[in-house]
């Protein structure tokens, strides 16, 4: 009997040891600096694998690892909570960046000379994402994307349709397309986030670019600023499929690729997905004309990928050296070819032909950030917009938008207003 008890005791001890005793290995110290990048775009994994190899071949003192995991947002969050920070993170220019700057996770890289090569519009975009104006620069913009309207170039040439430059022209174009028995737009609104594509593209032309900051400062409301955007967004529905909420993003890409509609209001990021279905498709894009004054149109473009050095990074110079390598012209060109992206670096780069219609805006620097980059994701603005597009009630929607904004941004609003009281109103 003693023996059996001994066995169960041993079992107990073994289990507890397994739980308590760490099984960890240590790393050798070889004088080589380890730099790790965690970037959030798994679709660009092949590109980053190649860059990683090239970098390591040409550098003896720094060893670079780039991970492009499939669910980077969750992985980033869990690594932050266990305080296991990568040296560099590759993220998008959206509210998460704002949070990370606010939380002091990112390091100030304003001394980095590479910043001066970056197109200032994109540096400004990052600047204005900061919740309260924060001294310094916390990210190096790498690539941007743009949203507007993709169109089937062959179909347009065949029917002699012209690219619209004003809202009235767009509506007229839709009527013309419709009268030939072709569907003007395809939508994939079952995937709520796709509702944001036409929304953003219209909002940049119709609402002030600093709408969200002004609301946070208590100076205006969305009911005032978003009414026209909402109405026009709703109007577009007349030119889409009968039941746009039945289809998802993939369905819409497939349908557009198969020539079921002439246009598709989505971002440049959709091109690879469309070409997967129809590799020979000739696609071009144009800026969504929200206004009737063509000069007020602006391209909806934001930072899709930036690199930020974390505060925890031990060798910031090495990290910046890696970023400089990534910013070499050849690498940038390779990235934008691969991802159909827009470079954030100033200089001569060859843009994908799918961006032809947007090129003049990019060259002129006439770009405005996505409004939704300021929306906290838990507010589910996309779902709100979907709800609105289903029931078509502008007033209720705007009211909900305002209420929900106040609810989910409470802490930010308090921070902004406190800052403004201390520093005098920013503007």
């Amino acid at each position, binding site marked *: 009997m003693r023996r059996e*008890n001994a066995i169960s005791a041993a079992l107990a001890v073994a*289990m*507890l040891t397994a739980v308590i005793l760490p099984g960890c290995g240590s790393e050798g110290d070889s004088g080589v600096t380890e730099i790790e990048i965690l970037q959030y775009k798994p679709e660009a994994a092949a590109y980053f694998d190649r860059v990683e190899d090239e970098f390591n071949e040409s550098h003896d003192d720094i060893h670079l690892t780039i991970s492009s995991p499939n669910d980077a947002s969750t992985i980033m969050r869990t690594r932050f909570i266990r305080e296991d920070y990568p040296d560099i993170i590759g993220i998008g220019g959206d509210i998460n960046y704002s949070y990370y700057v606010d939380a002091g996770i990112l390091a100030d890289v304003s001394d980095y000379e590479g910043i001066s090569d970056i197109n200032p519009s994109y540096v400004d975009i990052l600047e204005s994402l900061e919740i309260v104006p924060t001294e310094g620069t916390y990210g190096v913009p790498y690539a941007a994307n743009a949203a507007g309207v993709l169109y089937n170039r062959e179909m347009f040439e065949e029917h002699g349709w012209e690219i619209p430059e004003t809202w009235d022209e767009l509506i007229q174009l839709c009527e013309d397309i419709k009268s030939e028995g072709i569907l003007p737009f395809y939508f994939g609104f079952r995937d709520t986030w796709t509702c944001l594509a036409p929304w953003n593209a219209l909002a940049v032309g119709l609402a002030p670019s600093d709408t969200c900051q002004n609301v946070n400062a208590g100076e205006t409301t969305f009911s005032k600023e978003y009414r026209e955007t909402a109405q026009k967004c709703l109007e577009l529905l007349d030119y889409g499929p009968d039941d746009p*909420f039945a289809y998802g993003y993939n369905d819409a890409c497939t349908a557009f690729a198969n020539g079921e509609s002439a246009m598709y209001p989505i971002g440049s990021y959709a091109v690879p997905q469309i070409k997967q279905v129809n590799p020979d498709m000739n696609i071009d894009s144009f800026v969504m004309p929200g206004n009737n004054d063509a000069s007020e149109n602006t391209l909806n473009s934001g930072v899709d990928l930036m690199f930020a050095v974390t505060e925890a990074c031990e060798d910031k110079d090495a990290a910046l050296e890696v970023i400089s390598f990534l910013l070499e012209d050849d690498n940038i060109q390779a990235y934008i070819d691969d991802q159909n992206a827009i470079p954030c670096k100033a200089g001569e780069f060859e843009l994908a032909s799918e961006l032809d219609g947007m090129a003049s805006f990019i060259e002129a620097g006439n770009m405005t950030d996505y409004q939704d980059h300021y929306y906290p994701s*838990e507010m589910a603005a996309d779902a*709100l917009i979907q709800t609105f597009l289903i029931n078509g009630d502008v007033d209720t929607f705007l009211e909900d938008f305002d209420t929900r904004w106040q*609810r*989910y941004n409470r802490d930010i609003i308090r921070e902004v207003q406190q800052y403004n009281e201390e520093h005098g109103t920013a503007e």
Partner: protein
Amino acid sequence: MKKANDSKRTYMLITIPILALFVCFNTVPLIRGVIYSFTNFKGFGDYDWVGLRNYMDLFTDPRIGNSYLFTIKLAIVATIVTNVISLVLALGLNSKIRGKTFLRAAYFVPNVLGALVVGYIFQYIFTYILPEIGKMVGNKTLSTSLLSSTSLAWIAIVVVCAWQNIAMNTIIYISGLQTVPEDVYEAGDLDGATGWKKFRYLTFPLIIPFFTINMVLCVKNFLMVFDQIMAMTQGGPAQSTESISYLIYQNGMEGGSFGYQSANAVVFFIVIVAISVAQMSISSKKEEQL
């Protein structure tokens, strides 16, 4: 006397370490989660104590209210549908049929597939195939996608949840039916009991423990529905299918309101425990009566 002590000690020596493991990886993190529910923790960075603010907010947030209504509605309907169908299936699969092994294996397949995969397949069916069938039979409601209708999308979720869960429930019912000794039926046959009566008064009382397990499993699975929502509707259309788990994950993990959603999770936990305890005590009373 010595023997009783010895066995007591053995029981303890088994229980304590396993319990410790459980406390370590379930209770301790749960307590940490509860602590977060009193903060405005985003999931990273600093946070402040906000007292009961998160809990007060829960009761004024229409989104939370709607998600509870949706989830509970889904759980009740899906539980009933699943249990009725799987009981019938189990009776069928337990009777004298050809190809029993094949059929039993085939009916289990849905449970083997991951919920995400099932969600994707059904998304195709609901988007493209069902509407065509609806048009063919001239039914107006069916000729548009169920998933795009704010009033009907939840039914699509019920169908998928049931389709997948019926398999496991059926297996549990079959193993229950196997415990019913043949002589019970023989006795029933002598009394002239047939069909429904035989089931109601002879079979069913004997498989009540299995019924309880199935009910608890179903209610738990359906109240915590997540993957199906993720794959099929992502809470849409018009937020009509936001389940509680979906909200907690989406806003707590992906978004920046970890503290708030922790409070939601705590309340949710209490609600499910309450429901399940009620359920189990009702059915154990039933068991005693029979």
